[in-house]
């Protein structure tokens, strides 16, 4: 997919569609900015005026609670107006196409779309068709990417474990169906971790996963040995067609993170999970609620990271684009839109 789409002519981040193609410097800039937003959540009045008067539409074609809620809180803390749309339940079921939905919402003067869609590439498609002043954040597209989750995971790791260069990290579980895993792998490789392993049964490992620069392990004993960070994934039963695992019971026995398996990792290793968790399937409650778990802090950090991404892509519209008023922009865009539809 075209990663150049994410940047404007001057190389500034314009949309966040995938972590693939982001430089180390850009990722660190997002994490640093998020760090400064953490304090806003700890204040009496948890609101700052950066996006006052901007309209953010959370456009979810696939259900989500945590991601949508944290995007909503993030936008509200930045003083934007937020509209939540669960499209699966409205226009799409009446036959409206994705781009028609977007064009209608654009006509309502939306400044930023946060998009989740079951099809890989949906956010890219939208980004290609919106006018210059509209921004897109990918909140998960099919099996492809979930960049803000990847970034909040990097934020969590940096806060709890420090510099990436020294860390050994294992990503465990349903790598095959996971857009989270793909975003994590791109981020961790760009940030230069010392060692990155993926741990899963062969049926849940994508073919040629090693090409991404990771070591694949099919046994937890090999995968977790001495790691500083264990990143668990949700077993995505809704994306599975056919038998990827023999039985849930057997999966838990072999790959479920129990205190005994966690003991293979470094003593002070942290345990992460993007949620929602399948307790007793990929993770034991004793670990999920245990002292090494940073699963709930991940949710809190997610707000600050999403605030940072919104602030970075919405701020500083270059002067050349700023001079064109919204009305003139929409006049010029209408014919272009029609041409594309032919």
């Amino acid at each position, binding site marked *: 997919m075209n990663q150049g789409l994410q940047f404007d002519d001057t190389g500034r981040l314009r949309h966040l569609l995938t972590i693939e193609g982001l430089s180390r410097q850009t990722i660190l800039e997002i994490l640093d900015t998020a760090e400064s937003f953490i*304090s806003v959540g700890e*204040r009496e009045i948890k609101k700052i005026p950066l996006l006052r008067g901007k309209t953010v539409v959370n456009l979810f074609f696939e259900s989500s609670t945590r991601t949508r809620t944290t995007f909503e809180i993030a936008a509200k803390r930045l003083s934007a107006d937020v509209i939540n749309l669960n499209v699966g339940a409205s226009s799409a079921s009446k036959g409206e196409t994705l781009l028609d939905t977007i064009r209608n919402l654009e006509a309502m003067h939306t400044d930023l779309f946060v998009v989740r869609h079951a099809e890989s590439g949906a956010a890219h498609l939208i980004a290609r068709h919106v006018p210059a002043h509209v921004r897109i954040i990918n909140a998960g597209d099919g099996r492809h990417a979930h960049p803000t989750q990847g970034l909040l995971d990097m934020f969590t790791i940096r806060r709890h474990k420090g510099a990436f260069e020294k860390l050994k990290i294992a990503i465990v579980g349903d790598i095959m169906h996971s857009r989270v895993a793909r975003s994590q792998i791109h981020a961790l490789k760009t940030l230069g971790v010392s060692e990155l392993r993926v741990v899963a049964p062969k049926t849940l490992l994508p073919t040629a996963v090693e090409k991404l620069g990771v070591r694949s392990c099919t046994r937890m004993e090999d995968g977790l040995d001495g790691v500083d960070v264990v990143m668990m994934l949700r077993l995505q039963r809704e994306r599975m067609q056919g038998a990827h695992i023999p039985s849930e019971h057997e999966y838990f026995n072999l790959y479920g993170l129990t205190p005994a398996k966690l003991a293979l990792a470094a003593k002070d290793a942290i345990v992460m999970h993007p949620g929602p968790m399948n307790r007793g399937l990929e993770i034991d409650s004793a670990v999920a609620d245990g002292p090494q778990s940073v699963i709930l802090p991940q949710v809190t950090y997610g707000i600050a990271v999403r605030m940072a991404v919104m602030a*970075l892509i919405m701020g*500083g519209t270059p*002067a050349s684009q700023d001079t064109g008023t919204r009305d003139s922009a929409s006049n010029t865009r209408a014919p272009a839109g029609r041409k594309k539809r032919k």
Partner: protein
Amino acid sequence: MTAAIDVEAALARMVEQLRPALKSKPLMIGIHTGGAWVAEQLRRQLGLQEPLGTLDISFYRDDFTRVGMNPQVRTSHLPVNVEDRHLILVDDVLHTGRTIRAALNEIFDYGRPASVMLACLVERGGRELPIEPQVVGERVKLGKDQHVKLLGPEKLELRIQEANG
């Protein structure tokens, strides 16, 4: 290069002007970065016991949509509740007044102070908002293309630079 400004003398004048305000047990707040340096000097010279508050006004700037995020935002830190407190807001250079407007907005997101007094090391004219300082270290008259820059934090030094120089 215009004549340098004597920082020590300017600070001494500020200290004298601030003494009467100490009766109300004020909380001193410096604006990042230069204002915080000046505030720290004043706090020491006035013998204030309470730690300093610091504000980074990046989130409150009125030019955000034009210039974007400052990547070096520091965390604002107010050590105590500002509710009903008398505040001394300190900045290094007072020019357009837009920084002070942003700082006041931020302060009111933490609570409702009893009063806010504005103290600046250098007052250079060119105000674009109805904001006036109560305490001034030095007044200078500068052209639009001249900049005053405070260097620190160990030893504070003021430099006047020509924009195209």
